[in-house]
């Protein structure tokens, strides 16, 4: 384990930023935190987590895919892809680290999405263990360990120091690159903090939420549950839950005429939107009930069915704090699973 005094954290950031772009949570003027590019003077946020998830860095909200030039009846396709630069995402919470695995299984399965893959290959993920989990957190429900986050490097922050441990080859390289700034240390302080955090985790309001009622093969059983009707009544179909969600990956492909050619781009889309599935001969999800059901069935049943039991929710709690009508996946799980 390597250790660095928090007094010197900006020296570390400066060293990392010398040859790689560094992203980390930074406080915004509205009080929220957001993954931002580090530059001299940037202050690392103390917030528990960012409002927008770090999926933006691999799967941006909008992204140009290719360009076309047309002349008369002729079309030229222009490949505008660029290999991603190397970058580091620093301070990623355990839930968000897990979300990358959920996205990987979609974008890196054949045929590989080259846009996502390029960024993913060039990224080093430095995770950060939680010490002050909040009442909207329920990562443990999905088997995620907030005090031992995954990633290329795991980090633990105490009141005075930050500790690092490499988990992958990329992580070893990262630690080697900052070796001069850090010193070898035992894990006493880290273990003390882990024990404290584990105690808090046990007392969180959602600590007892389980996935027992969900998983692959449960479609028939859950499809006609009255919860879909009842809970979708007030859903605004605003899509906020899908946009803040680190694992939501639905996208649309659209063309934009620049006047000097056409850019084909993709942008996030949402299964909560009425247009999402509309076709020439009708819409197979006519009401908000069907769309609402799709979102939760996907995360809790369809995705695990296709991905060896892995759920497509990481319990980050973003949708819990952001839904304008206070609807969320934890409520749905409680209602269906009973208060166990």
């Amino acid at each position, binding site marked *: 384990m390597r250790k660095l005094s928090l007094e010197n954290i900006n020296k570390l950031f400066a060293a990392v930023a010398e040859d790689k772009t560094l992203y980390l949570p930074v406080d915004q003027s509205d009080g929220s935190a957001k993954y931002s590019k580090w530059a001299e003077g940037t202050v690392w946020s103390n917030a528990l987590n960012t409002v927008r998830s770090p999926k933006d860095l691999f799967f941006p909200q909008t992204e140009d*895919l*290719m360009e*076309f030039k*047309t002349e008369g*009846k*002729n*079309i*030229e*396709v222009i*490949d505008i*892809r*660029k*290999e991603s630069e190397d970058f580091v995402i620093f301070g990623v919470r355990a839930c968000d680290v897990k979300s990358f695995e959920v996205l990987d299984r*979609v*974008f890196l*399965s054949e*045929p*590989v*999405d*080259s*846009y996502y*893959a*390029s960024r993913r290959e060039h990224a080093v993920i430095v995770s950060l263990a939680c010490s002050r989990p909040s009442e909207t957190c329920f990562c443990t429900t999905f088997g995620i360990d907030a005090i031992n986050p995954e990633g290329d490097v795991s980090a633990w922050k105490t009141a005075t120091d930050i500790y690092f441990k490499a988990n992958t080859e990329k992580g070893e390289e990262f630690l080697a690159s900052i070796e001069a700034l850090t010193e070898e240390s035992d894990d006493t302080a880290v273990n003390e903090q882990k024990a404290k955090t584990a105690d808090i985790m046990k007392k969180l309001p959602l600590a007892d939420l389980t996935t027992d009622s969900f998983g*692959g093969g449960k*479609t*028939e059983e859950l*499809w006609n549950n009255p919860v879909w009707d009842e809970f979708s009544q007030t859903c605004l179909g605003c899509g906020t839950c899908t946009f803040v969600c680190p694992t939501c*990956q*639905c*996208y*649309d*492909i*659209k*063309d934009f*005429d620049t006047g000097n050619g*056409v850019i*084909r781009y*993709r942008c996030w*889309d949402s*299964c909560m939107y009425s247009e*999402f*599935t*509309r*076709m*020439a*001969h*009708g819409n*197979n*999800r006519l009401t908000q009930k*069907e769309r609402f059901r*799709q979102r939760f*069935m*996907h995360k809790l*049943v*369809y*995705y695990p*069915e*296709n991905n060896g039991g892995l759920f497509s929710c990481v319990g980050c709690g973003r949708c819990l704090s952001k839904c304008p009508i206070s609807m969320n996946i934890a409520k749905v799980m409680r209602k269906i699973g009973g208060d166990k």
Partner: protein
Amino acid sequence: MNMREDTLIPKVGVITDVRIDTPDIKTFRVVTPDGKKAFDHRPGQCAMLSIPGVGEAMFSITSSPTNTEYMEFSIKKCGCVTEWLHQAEVGQQLTIRGPYGNPFPVDDVFAGKNMLFIAGGVGLAPLRSVINYCRHYRDRYGDIDIVYGSRSKDDLLDYKEIIEEWSNDAGVKVHLTIDNPQEGWNGHVGFVPNYVKELNFDTNKTAVLCGPPIMIKFTLEGLCSMGFDKTQIYTTLELRMKCGVGKCGRCNVGSKYVCKDGPVFRCDELDELPDEY
């Protein structure tokens, strides 16, 4: 730059022939600018065609894989891309990517079987690929029955090919029908599901259905009441699509993505899926 291929980046294709089939369906012949087929496919697979600036849409490849020279698409006018294509002329370029989806099991399950094809309207487009494949390898299949119906005589797709080629093949029977009586039509009049019941087929056949959802529903019921088992019946689903490869999240029915796990499904497999298509 040396990046891997990406299925979202299409090839350029060029329209080399436009055939007016019906008042709202045209059939387009497409090759690459150097005159080749854009890619190989299997019967039942689809391709994404696009006109940059207008949009991209999924279409069945209606020509058979045994046609090594070009691909054909029968396209019904109903929105941005399709309307644009309908006013396109020979020589117009477009973009094409694919092939997408799971094909009909023509070489294993269908081999040696008596085939019953049932189509309504533009639903003949995906079936034409299989029908011509079976006709090409005629000795690999038993009797072939084709039931095809549309609103009127003028709305029958591939009419010339049906009359001049399919109807003249040994062991191939074509049963055409139109919804309402029409001058100059002395064939059958009535909806496809009823006609199928009247024809009262032997159940020793493998059936392939394609058409509007309502036609599929009633025909399927009819076949089952005639004694067909759902494991003998295949159909294709059509949902809104963007990526074609199970990533944009748009076309799922339960845990299946129609773009990659379909569009071809056996009817008993459909029973396992939630009723949302």
